[in-house]
């Protein structure tokens, strides 16, 4: 397996070249603005409708309680290209807010123009995730956070080098002290990144309001699409249940073909896991194209077509993925239902911006 094939969720990416570090950090050499009455807090009690019990704070591990200071520090790191070897790739390169913190490219571009093999999915609402990366190789956000820094086709650095860079900046040192009570180190750097990601909550879509009983923006076509989504004809719900729209499991959805990325099998070694990938949540799916683990499906219309065909025909496809024989009206209804998952406020929320 090549280095590139190890990449799943390309968590970090190049920094927009025109942005300087000073701009990202807020003001050169000084602390990011502290939260106050004029600055909306990153950490809120918002929970998307139908999600598992508890807020994002409740999902944080005991040794990394979610606090405003930690999330703000993580945000600064998230947008900081210094974490890469070449100082021009940040986490935000592949996880762009305008695309619900996903990458509009099929696969992302890392340092020196290197490309991986998997699409960077949306990381909004990752606080409720059970595993991370397309193959689920990371069990926590903290564990996940360091991997893109060290991946050769992403940031191609090391966590220790990243720590050394931020530790040379007094303002960073002060912020780490405030957030974690200690100078920058590998553990706190990864915890801070995880804290910011945990703060990215999206829960203001028409679908959220529908689940809460307000169908103002959930008209008949979306209702028909929802019924199809939950029907025995489509059976989408098996993998995309509830408000989270993911069962957090690993399935072969029919995208894999012989010779392709084997996904979960690279972690487990099991023959039966060939072509399995983690089921992504579908929140904001309409703004996070392209689709599937490899970004090989450019539009939601094409996604529906692929599922309508029962996948691409590989015998490893999950037995629940079967041809559906949808009519054109049914496809349009499904598409409109998927559009109801978009939370426009996430895409322009200043709290999450650099």
């Amino acid at each position, binding site marked *: 397996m090549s280095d590139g094939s190890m990449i799943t969720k390309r968590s970090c990416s190049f920094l927009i070249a025109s942005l300087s570090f000073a701009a990202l950090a807020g003001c050169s050499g000084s602390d990011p603005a502290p939260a106050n009455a004029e600055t909306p807090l990153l950490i809120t009690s918002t929970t998307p409708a139908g999600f*598992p*019990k508890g807020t994002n704070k409740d999902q944080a591990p005991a040794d990394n309680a979610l606090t405003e200071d930690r999330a703000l520090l993580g945000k600064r790191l998230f947008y900081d290209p210094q974490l890469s070897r070449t100082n021009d790739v940040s986490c935000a390169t592949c996880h762009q807010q305008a695309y619900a913190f996903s990458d509009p490219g099929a696969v992302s571009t890392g340092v020196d123009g290197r490309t991986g093999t998997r699409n960077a999915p949306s990381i909004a609402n990752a606080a409720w995730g059970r595993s991370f990366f397309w193959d689920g190789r990371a069990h926590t956000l903290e564990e996940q956070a360091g991997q893109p820094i060290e991946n050769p086709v992403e940031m191609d650095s090391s966590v220790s080098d990243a720590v050394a860079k931020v530790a040379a900046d007094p303002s960073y040192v002060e912020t780490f002290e405030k957030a974690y009570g200690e100078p920058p180190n590998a553990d706190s750097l990864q915890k801070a990144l995880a804290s910011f990601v945990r703060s990215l909550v999206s829960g203001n879509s028409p679908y959220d309001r529908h689940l809460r009983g307000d169908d103002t923006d959930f008209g008949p076509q979306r209702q028909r699409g929802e019924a199809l989504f939950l029907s025995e004809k489509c059976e989408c719900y098996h993998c995309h249940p*509830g408000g989270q729209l993911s069962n957090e499991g690993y399935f072969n959805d029919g995208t894999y073909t012989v010779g392709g990325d084997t996904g979960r099998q690279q972690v487990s070694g099991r023959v039966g896991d060939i072509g399995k990938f983690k089921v992504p949540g579908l929140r904001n799916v309409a703004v996070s194209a392209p689709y599937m683990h490899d970004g090989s499906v450019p539009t939601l219309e094409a996604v529906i077509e692929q599922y309508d065909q029962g996948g691409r025909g590989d015998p490893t496809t*999950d037995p*629940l993925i079967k041809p559906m024989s949808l009519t054109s009206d049914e496809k349009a209804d499904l598409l409109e239902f998927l559009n109801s998952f978009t939370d426009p406020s996430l895409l322009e929320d200043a709290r999450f911006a650099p």
Partner: protein
Amino acid sequence: MKLARLAALMTCTAVLVGPLGCSSENGQTPSAGGSPGAGGATAEAGAAEAGDGPSNGGAPDTDDVSPGWSVTASTCAEKLTPQRMQGTLLSLLLQPVLAGEPFVFGDPNPLADGSAVIPLNFRFYISEVELLRNDGDAVAVDVVTAAGEPEPYGVHLFNAEDTDSGTLRVLAPAGDYTGLRFALGIKLACNKQTPANLDDPLDTASQMTWPHGGGFLYFRYEGRSSVADSGAAGASGAAGTNAASEVPPAVHMGGNLVTEFVPHVTVSGALSVPRSGTAERELTVAMDEVFKGANSDIDVSDFAVGFRSTPEAVAGERLRRELPELHVFELKP
């Protein structure tokens, strides 16, 4: 063998304290026993004091008689009042088998005709566990974690992908038993709940939820079969499932939100629970019997409507109705 044989054995005698709001001094006092399960056994009534030792001669502790699961049948509490505060940790190693051989998750399991079946997803719930006495009475026992604390909702989720789930642990009074009984699924009070309001193992990540206003699968299997190589037929000759054509691609059991639907399974076999230390037994899950039940021709037309009309739901309902005639679970010596 990748499925859990690990059973990290616990301390000799587990003690339930603290998080359940019960102190060791005032361990729950069983009330008059009701009918503990579908099998008709009745738990004895009587008060018990926590921590009393077992009687001589291997007979189950008479003062450990529990009230039975009927007491909590109408509720779905995450934190249960334990049946007893002390007991011996009995670990039951759940071992799926096919034709007598371990049924290995995610890998090809050979069939007699030279083909193979690869399980892709296999999980089921167990709850309301009772140990059976030779006089026919049943002793309800708590399903507990490796740390000896009650599992949330009193439910254990076996997930073949998760080796830690391969051990069903109960806190049992010492004694000699003739078998055990359990619900292969969850009770109606839990089945009617909305998964978004519940925690593991009854949340959507369990992969056991229906989408239609609540409800859970009790038993879920999916797999794929490979085509037999020419000339390979008869390679095994083992009893049970012989060909890929006899293996359904998916079996989903569950799907009734109105009536108590969960089947109860009785497994016979001598089971001795010591006063001290721990006990461990293997409880096999015969996939041949599962497939046999799922493939039966029993009429389920009254069930197969709407979202329950899929092939996998029909297979699951056939399995559920055939269970009394099958020997899916077996206690190994």
